[in-house]
């Protein structure tokens, strides 16, 4: 199924907005994480983590799901297909992987933020050293690797490295044959 040109452009614009927004939101998350790691003020650390949780659940997760879905629609609704070209397949697998890791990681962030919320500021300073030390470790690994994966996907989408899958070759061959047959049929019919 191929989308009409107007719908294709709209879908592409939507997909780009979601994908670029996802990358931007991850960078904002990293900035908050760095703030939590570098600050010595308890309230600042806690506020940064609360901001990270809000950004994660209300911005990054919706953008990731929307980007995954619009990417799938773009692949299936255009001539590129989902399984015809390696770069499309790789992009889809990497996006799925990043989304799954994100959905598995966010509950951990919520656990930490709940711990920080449940402790009073004074208690966090005095009795909750381990909570503060955990919060001060920040969260760089997951968003850092996630950002690297997203940039890799972006590079794949921009450069579109050549290479067709076996399925893609077979489909291409079938389409060429069908085209040749239709051309031969026309030449026979013409006087």
């Amino acid at each position, binding site marked *: 199924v191929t989308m009409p040109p107007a719908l294709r452009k709209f879908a592409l614009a939507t997909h780009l907005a979601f994908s670029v927004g996802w990358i931007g939101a991850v960078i904002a998350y990293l900035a908050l994480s760095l703030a939590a790691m570098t600050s010595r003020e308890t309230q600042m650390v806690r506020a940064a983590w609360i901001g990270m949780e809000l950004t994660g659940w209300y911005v990054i997760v919706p953008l990731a799901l929307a980007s995954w879905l619009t990417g799938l629609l*773009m*692949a299936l609704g*255009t001539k*590129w297909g989902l399984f015809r070209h390696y770069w499309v397949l790789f992009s889809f697998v990497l*996006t799925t992987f990043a989304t799954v890791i994100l959905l598995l990681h966010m509950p951990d962030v919520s656990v930490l933020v709940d711990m920080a919320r449940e402790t009073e500021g004074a*208690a966090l300073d005095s*009795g909750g050293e381990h909570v503060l030390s955990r919060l001060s470790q920040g969260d760089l690994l997951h968003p850092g690797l996630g950002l690297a994966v997203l940039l890799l996907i972006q590079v794949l989408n921009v450069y579109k490295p*050549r290479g067709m899958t076996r399925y893609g*070759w077979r489909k291409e061959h079938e389409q060429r044959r069908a085209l040749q047959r239709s051309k031969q049929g026309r030449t026979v019919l013409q006087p």
Partner: protein
Amino acid sequence: LADPTSSETEHDGAKQAPGPGMPRWVKISLVIAILVVLAFVVTWLLGVQHGPSLHEPPQGSGDNVSSIEQPVDRP
């Protein structure tokens, strides 16, 4: 994901790939992916903390959130 506005030449470039064999960049990417998965499995088997357990208070310390919330009565 897929950019339908790209020129036909780009699409033709994909068509002109020599045969249905796997391109070099795909092979290298697959090798890297396998190495990453192996590294993850090895760290998991070695018991490196990851996930929710990383955020739990150390066992035996008795220093958990509930103990922070509930003030201890001292004489």
